[in-house]
Every structure is written in C-alpha cells, then in structure tokens.
C-alpha cells in the first residue's frame, strides 16, 4: 500500500520521533510505514487520518491504483 505519510509529516515539519510520540508508536513503526515496508492496522490508520485531518483514502492508496 502506498502512503503520503512522509510528505504530510514534512509539511508540518515534524520529525519521525515527534510523529511517533503523537501516535503512541515507535519511531521504527513510522519509518516502516513511510518506506512502505509495513501497512498500519486500521485503528492506527484512522489515528493518522485524524491527526492530519485528511480522509484515509487521501493518505493511503492500494498498490494497484
């Protein structure tokens, strides 16, 4: 699954550590999501969506799209 997490984080000038703290996950998790090595769970995806005030489909898109 593709995502715009790195781009959204950069817009707000947050570090991976800061974002990790806001989402209560490890920095490794943020890095793995940004590098698309790991797809977040639905609850975490919704948390990300709420934090960036964007709908899920504008942050995450399936690989084929």
């Amino acid at each position, binding site marked *: 699954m593709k995502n715009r997490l790195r781009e959204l984080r950069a817009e707000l000038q947050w570090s991976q550590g800061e974002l*990790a*703290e806001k989402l*209560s*996950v490890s920095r*490794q*998790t943020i890095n793995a999501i940004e590098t698309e090595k*790991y797809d*977040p769970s639905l609850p975490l995806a919704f948390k990300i969506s709420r934090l960036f005030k964007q709908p899920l489909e504008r942050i995450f898109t399936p690989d084929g799209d």
Partner: protein
Amino acid sequence: MSNSTTSGENERRPERAAVKRALRSFELSAWLALATLVYVITLILVRRHPGWSPSEKIAVSLVPILPGLFYLKKGIQLLRELDELQRRIQFEAWLFAAIGTVIVGTVINVFNANGLEGKWVAHGLEVGGTYLTMFLLWSVGVVIANLRYR
C-alpha cells in the same frame, strides 16, 4: 518559560518510555533468573533427599512453576505494551523459533532413527536443548524481522 518547560518535558517523554521499557525487560529477566534458580535449588534438594516420598518430590518439583507463572505474566504485560510493529516482529520471531525448533528436533530424531546417534549427533533435543535452540532461533528471528522493517 512554560513553553520551554513543556518542550523539555516532551523531549524527555520518549526517554522515560525507554527507561520504563528497559525496567520492564529487566523485571522480566529477573523473574526468569529467579525461576531458573528455584528450579536448580529444587533439583539439588530432590537429589539430596532420595528418601522423600513421591508426593513430597512432586510438591518440591512443582515449586519453580510459581516464579515461572510470574515470568509468563510479566512477558504478556511487556508484549501488550509494545506497539503494533514490535508485536508483529515478536510474533514473527516466535513463529520462526517454534517452527525452527520443531525442524531441528525432527532432524535429530531422523538422524537417531538412522543410527547416526553418538559422537556427532545428540540423542534428541532435551528440555535444556529445546530452550537453548528456541532462544537462539528467537534471537535470530528478532534480528531478521528488525532488518526487514528497518
């Protein structure tokens, strides 16, 4: 002033979480060490008292289960505190360790069945060997999974 204090607090929060996690890990290791110590003590006690009745031997032999249960409880607590990626890493590592141990045990049994037991091949995986194999494979599994999600 209050902003800088808040920012300082925020900067220290991950450190505190790391310290908390380290303490939990230490607590977990301490329970494992205690369980192992109690196991060794009970083993020595039972061997030094051959006159004990079977029920006495059973009662003493079961004592290490108590710290073992606390170890299990702490381990589950620690797993629940991990974030979802860390839980996935642990799951993959434990699966690798469990399947790997079954494979190692099976290979040794096949060697034994084919008459290769002796100097080069162990006689089955005993309890100690199983723990050691699982621990080694779990360590390898953690490294592999961490490299995968790095």
